[in-house]
C-alpha cells in the first residue's frame, strides 16, 4: 500500500486517536490493521466495487474507527461496513464525516472485547477493466482460436499489492496492481471455434456503379461466430471489446486480417467481426426501368397518386478462386409488391429484402427485381 492512497488510513486513525481521547474518555480506540483479503469487482462496466476485509480488535462498549482516503476517489456515500465474526454482537451506531477531509469515523458498539472481522466495501473511481480479444484464424478460414484478455487499468491513486479480481464470469484472477499501472492478463482461450465467412453488400450504403469511381468499392467481409457450447463457447456472455484477428499464413507465421469492436454477445447470440473489405467481389447495380403507372390526378390535373413500374438489375462477379456467399440487402420503401424476381429473398422488414447469392469461383450471378411501389402520393 502506498503512502498516498488508502495508506492515509493508518495516519487518519492516529490523528483521530488524540481527538477522541480528549473528547470522549470512555470511547475506546481501535487500530485499523492492514487489509487481509481484497476483492476488486469489475462486473459492472461503469463502476468498480472494492471489498476489503480486515480484523478489528474491539473493546467492550463504544469504539471509533477512522477511515480516510486522501488522494483516492471514493464515493463516500457508497462506503459500507459489515461485521463478519459476531454480527449479532457488534453494531454500527453511526458514521461521522469530519469537515474538509476525505474521511469518516465509524462509531461501533461491541458486546465484548474481541477480534472482529469486518468487510469494507466502496465504489472506487478510475480503476476499471478493458476487454480485448485476439483471434487466430486458420488458413482455410473455417475456425479460429479465440483468446480473451482482461486489461486492468488502475489510476485510482491506490496500490493493490494483491487482490482477487472478479469479472462477472470465470475464475477470479489473483493479481496485484499499482496506481498508474496497466496489466494485461489472459482470461480464457478457446481453440478451433467454427466461423462462417460472410460478404455483405447493402444497396443503401454501397455505390452502384464502381466503374465511375476512382477507388475500389470494398465489400465488407466478416467472420460470424456463434456463442454456443457446440462451438466451444456458450459458457458466458462475451463482453464487448476490441478484437484483433490474425490468420495463419501457412508458413509458420501470421498476418493481420483486421480488427473490430464487439458489443456484449449473450449466450446463443452471434458475434460478427468485420475484418476488412473484399475487392474481389464486384457488384454493379443499375436501375433499368422507373415509370409511373396507374396515375391518378385531381381536378387541377396534378398527380395525386400513382404506382411505379421499376426494374433493378445487379451483376455480381466473384473474381476469387474460391466460392463465396454474398448477402445482398435491397431496399424498397413504402407499399410494394414484387412482380418478378429471379432469386429468392427473405423479407427482413417492410422495406428490406435479403438475398443470399452463392457465387462460384470466378463466377457471376445476376439479380433482376421487377417490382411496383403502390399508392405513391404525388407532390402537391
Amino acid at each position: 500500500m502506498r503512502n498516498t492512497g488508502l495508506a492515509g488510513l493508518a495516519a487518519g486513525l492516529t490523528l483521530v486517536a488524540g481527538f477522541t481521547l480528549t473528547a470522549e474518555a470512555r470511547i475506546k480506540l481501535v487500530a485499523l490493521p492492514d487489509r487481509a483479503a481484497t476483492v476488486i469487482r469489475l462486473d459492472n462496466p461503469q463502476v468498480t466495487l472494492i471489498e476489503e476485509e480486515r480484523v478489528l480488535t474491539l473493546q467492550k462498549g463504544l469504539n471509533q474507527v477512522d477511515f480516510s482516503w486522501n488522494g483516492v476517489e471514493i464515493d463516500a456515500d457508497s462506503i459500507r461496513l459489515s461485521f463478519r465474526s459476531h454480527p449479532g454482537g457488534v453494531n454500527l451506531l453511526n458514521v461521522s464525516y469530519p469537515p474538509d477531509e476525505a474521511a469518516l469515523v465509524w462509531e461501533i458498539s461491541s458486546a465484548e472485547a474481541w477480534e472482529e472481522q469486518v468487510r469494507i466495501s466502496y465504489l472506487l473511481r478510475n480503476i476499471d477493466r478493458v476487454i480485448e480479444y485476439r483471434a487466430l484464424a486458420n488458413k482455410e478460414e473455417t475456425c479460429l482460436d479465440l483468446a480473451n484478455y482482461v486489461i486492468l487499468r488502475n489510476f485510482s491513486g491506490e496500490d493493490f499489492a494483491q487482490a482477487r479480481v472478479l469479472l462477472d464470469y470465470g475464475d477470479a484472477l489473483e493479481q496485484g496492481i499499482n496506481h498508474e499501472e496497466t496489466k494485461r492478463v489472459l482470461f480464457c482461450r478457446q481453440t478451433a471455434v467454427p466461423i462462417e465467412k460472410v460478404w455483405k453488400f447493402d444497396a443503401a450504403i454501397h455505390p452502384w456503379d464502381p466503374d465511375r469511381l476512382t477507388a475500389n468499392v470494398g465489400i465488407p467481409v466478416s467472420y460470424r461466430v456463434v456463442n454456443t457450447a457446440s462451438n466451444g463457447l456458450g459458457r458466458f456472455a462475451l463482453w464487448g471489446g476490441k478484437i484483433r484477428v490474425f490468420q495463419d499464413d501457412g508458413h509458420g507465421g501470421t498476418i493481420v486480417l483486421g480488427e473490430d469492436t464487439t458489443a456484449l454477445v449473450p449466450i446463443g447470440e452471434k458475434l460478427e467481426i468485420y475484418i476488412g473489405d473484399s475487392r474481389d467481389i464486384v457488384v454493379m447495380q443499375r436501375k433499368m426501368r422507373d415509370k409511373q403507372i396507374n396515375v391518378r390526378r385531381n381536378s387541377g390535373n396534378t398527380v395525386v397518386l400513382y404506382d411505379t413500374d421499376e426494374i433493378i438489375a445487379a451483376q455480381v462477379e466473384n473474381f476469387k478462386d474460391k466460392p463465396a456467399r454474398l448477402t445482398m440487402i435491397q431496399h424498397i420503401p413504402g407499399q410494394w409488391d414484387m412482380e418478378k424476381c429471379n432469386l429468392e429473398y427473405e423479407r427482413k422488414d417492410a422495406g428490406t429484402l435479403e438475398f443470399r447469392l452463392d457465387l462460384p469461383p470466378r463466377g457471376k450471378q445476376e439479380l433482376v427485381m421487377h417490382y411496383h411501389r403502390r399508392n405513391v402520393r404525388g407532390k402537391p
Partner: protein
Amino acid sequence: MKPTGATIFAVGVCITAAAFAKVDLVTLPKRDMVQLTIYNSADMTLVRESRKLTLQKGANKLQFSWANTLIDPTSLEILPKAQADKVEISDLTYPPRVGNLGMWNIKSEVSGEIPVEISYLTSGFSWRAFYMGTLSPDEKTMRLEGYVRVTNNSGEDYENAQTRLIVGQVHILDEIAELARRQYPYGRPIGVPPIAPVVMKGLYAKRALMDVAQTVESAPAMAEPKEIKKEGLSEYFLYTIEGTETIRNGWSKRLPSFEVEGIPVVNLYKYEEERYGNAVVRFLSFKNDQEHKLGETPIPGGMLYVYRLLDADQHLAFEGQSNFKYIPVGEDIELDLGPVANVIVKPTLMDFKSDHFLFDAGGDVIGWDEIQTFKIEVKNRRSLPVKVEIRRNFCTPHWDIETSGDGAFEKVDLDTVKFTVDLPPFSKKEVRYVLTTHHGRRAD
C-alpha cells in the same frame, strides 16, 4: 535491428532488480530472425522476431522497451515456440510512471534456453506499387513492368528482415501511430488519453551512405533481381520478397515485382459529356487474365507511366500516365491516359420538333413528345485503328430511340445508351439516332 537513435528492447536491469528483487530478470538476447509484414491500406506493419530466452525455473521477468519508435504497445505478444506447455506467460504489465516499457511475467517449469516469438505492430512503414508500360510501335501490345517501393519511417533500422507486403483493405479501429503515442497503452479509465510527441532522431544519413558504399563493394559481379512470391490469403494477397532486406530508417527501397512482355492491348476512346465534357479521353484497355499473359494474381493499384517504343533504336515517347485501382484476377483494366485531340467526336442536333400534344379540359398542355435528331461524327486522325465508345444520357426514363448509321447500340440503364464504333486509321464514321422523349401525361 540496431538500437540506434530509437532504442528498442533495452533491458533496464538496475530498475527492475530494485523493484523485483525476488524474481529473475531475463535479458533479451539478439534476435535470430525478423519478419516485416507491411500493409499499404493502413499505416501498419506486423513485426515478428525470433529470439532465444534463457529462463530460470520459476518466475521470470522479461523487460521490453521501445523508446522513440512507433510501436503499438497493446499489440505486444510473446509466444514460446518450444515447450509451450511448460512456459506460461502470466501477464504483461506496463509499470507506472515508466514510459515505453512492458514487463512480461513468465512462469517456467524448466530452466534453459527457450525459443520465443515476439510480435507487435508498428507504424512508419509503407509501400506502394507503380508500373511502367511500354507500348509497341503499333500499340497492339505492351510490356508491363511492376515495381514496389518500400519506405521505412518507423524510427528503427531493420537489418536483414524478411519483408512481406500485403495487398488488401484491412479494417482497423485505431491508428497505430496514435496508439504508439499514448502516454498509457490502454488510456485511462476516464478522459481522453494524452498524446505524447515522438521525437525521431535523424542520425541516419551519414551512416547509411557508408553502408551503401559497403554494399557496392561486396556485391557479387552478376546479381539477379530478387523475385517476389505472391499468394492469396483471405481477402488479401501476400507478396514475399525473396531473401532478406535491410531498410534503414528514413530510406526507401524500390524492388521489381514483375515483368510481362507482349500484353495485347486495345486503344479505347471514350466520349461522355457528363463525365469528360467535350473531350475524347483515351483509355488503354486489357484484362488481368491468362489470355493477356497476366491473371496469376491481382494487380495492386498504383501509377502507370505509359511510353511508346518509337523505333528500332529503342527511342521512347511518353504517352501519358494513369493512376489505376486494384484489379482482381479476371477483371478488365481501363487506364485513363487523358484527353486527346487526334480522335474527334462531334454530336450535332440536326432537327428538333415537338408533337403529340395532350390538353386538359381547360385547354392547357398536359403532355407532349420531343423528337430530336442527332448526328455524331467520329473521326480517327491517327495512323492506327481505334475503338470509340460514346455514351449518351437522356436524363429521363421516358424515351424511345431509332438508330441508323455506323456503330453498335446498347442500352446501359434506364436513361443511358452506348454506341461503339471501330475506326480504321485516318477514317471517319457517323452515328445517327432519333430520340423521342415523352413529357407530362405522355410519360404516363
